[in-house]
């Protein structure tokens, strides 16, 4: 485990702390610990109390949801420089998804309870910290919305199916192009 001085350097290297005051970073350092996870280990499990979040330094973390009758669905992977977890900020402080290490993961864990306390004591620290966190959340929300659009899939798969049927039924008759001509 790194010393506090080493931790401060690790924190400073993480993009989450770009533009954050040294004072804020110093306060957070007091709640941080360096962690290593091996392939398949879970950083967090759905449903458990959320009192930690992670700053991924190196490696990949799969955010996944388990669905009965199938293998877990990976919603998103997070990697170098990403922030993992915000349930600790929002009551009732419960983890929403499973977070699994894909390969070796080096991360800084931050004690959310500790940080919540510091933020409540020091509103200006709280504001600075939250404004950084909201930025991450907004990016994540936009990304999620884009994923939701399913843009690569054919915009209307039924068209494909329809055309196939049309072609097959018309197989003996020379086909004319659709009015849309592809």
């Amino acid at each position: 485990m790194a010393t506090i001085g080493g931790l401060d350097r690790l924190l400073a290297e993480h993009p989450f702390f770009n533009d954050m005051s040294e004072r804020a970073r110093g306060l957070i350092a007091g709640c941080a610990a360096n962690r290593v996870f091996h392939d398949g280990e879970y950083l967090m499990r759905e449903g458990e109390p959320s009192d930690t979040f992670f700053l991924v330094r190196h490696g990949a973390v799969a955010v996944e949801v388990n669905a009965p009758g199938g293998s877990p669905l990976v919603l998103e992977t997070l990697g170098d420089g990403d922030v993992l977890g915000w349930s600790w900020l929002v009551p009732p402080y419960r983890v929403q998804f499973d977070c699994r290490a894909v390969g070796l993961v080096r991360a800084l864990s931050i004690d959310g309870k500790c940080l919540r306390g510091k933020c409540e004591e020091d509103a200006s620290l709280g504001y600075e910290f939250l404004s950084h966190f909201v930025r991450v959340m907004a990016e994540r929300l936009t990304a999620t919305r884009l994923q939701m659009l399913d843009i690569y899939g054919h915009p209307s798969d039924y068209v494909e199916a329809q055309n196939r049927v049309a072609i097959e039924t018309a197989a003996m008759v020379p086909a004319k192009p659709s009015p849309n001509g592809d």
Partner: protein
Amino acid sequence: MPNTLLISSDQLQTLIDGLRTQGYETMGPRLERGTIVYGPITSGSDLPAGFRDEQEGGHYRLVPSDPSGLEAESFFRYVVGPYSWKRLLFPPRQRLWRARRSDGGFALEPAETRPHPYAFIGVRACELAALAVQDRVFSQGDFADSGYRSQREQTFLIAVNCTRAGGTCFCASMHTGPRARGGFDLCLTELLDESGHRFLVEVGSEPGRKLMEQVSYRRARPDEIEQGRQAVEDAVGSMGRQMRSDAGDILRRNQEHPRWVDVANRCLSCANCTMVCPTCFCSTVEDVTSLDGAESERRRQWDSCFNLEFSYVHGGPVRREAAARYRQWITHKLTYWHEQFGTSGCTGCGRCITWCPVGIDITAEVAAIRDSERAVLEGEV
């Protein structure tokens, strides 16, 4: 040969005969189904003499002149009708090529060409401008439409100056007419008064000069030339509409504007405006195969940006709303045409206004958007 000649009206027949002798298929205005259309003419009597047109937004009527008046003899007192010369050089339906099954695949048959070149008689100034626009469309850049080009290169053009403005004309504000300024082989101005029915003839080309050699003419006197000039001036003076010269910029900066929805509420997306427009060039293709599958041909036919499927990409049309389709049409005409071809796509012929079933007026739509801008600037809203 002098610059401006004078011929009597019966010499029109000599011109037509001369062209036909040279192998031209002579095409000109004819009276059909209550309108002036362009079709084959072989004699001056094919021309719709003594008619004039009433045109307004969504309104077209041909009216015979008072039989006792001078105008009863006139050949060209109407202006443009629903047809334009476009349909002869860029036909509404056309076979591009034909292929047959062979060689374990298919083989294309050689291209066909029309045996006779056209001579167009009675081309108005706005239509000469439209021909020049389509020349650019079909031959600018790396590619040329061979069918259009081979026809167009051989076409003989007899222009006619308008001595009367139609009800929806605005060529003067587009600087395309009513006087033909070039691009013709011969240009006629009809003179009709107590001295008789005559034509001033301007010669615009060597083939035009050669043709005139077969015709009985004399040099036009200055007073006759002045009379012709004045007749064309009368047409300018009676033109009721005008297009703003900054129309392109107005539309460019108003891609989002409530007027698009307003016009879309009136527009039927019927595509009439694009069909009658002498410069609209959009087309689609269709492959048609014989029942035995041995032969297949590609057909091209006029298309319109008002059709929903026009902008279809897999998934759906890009322009779903009528507002977007109207905007596409008018901005293409007045804004983007300049970028694409260095000229406006509108010649001020007024056909799109006359033949719009609900009388949407291209000049009024531009003016309405401009007025709304001014109202905002002047704090009226």
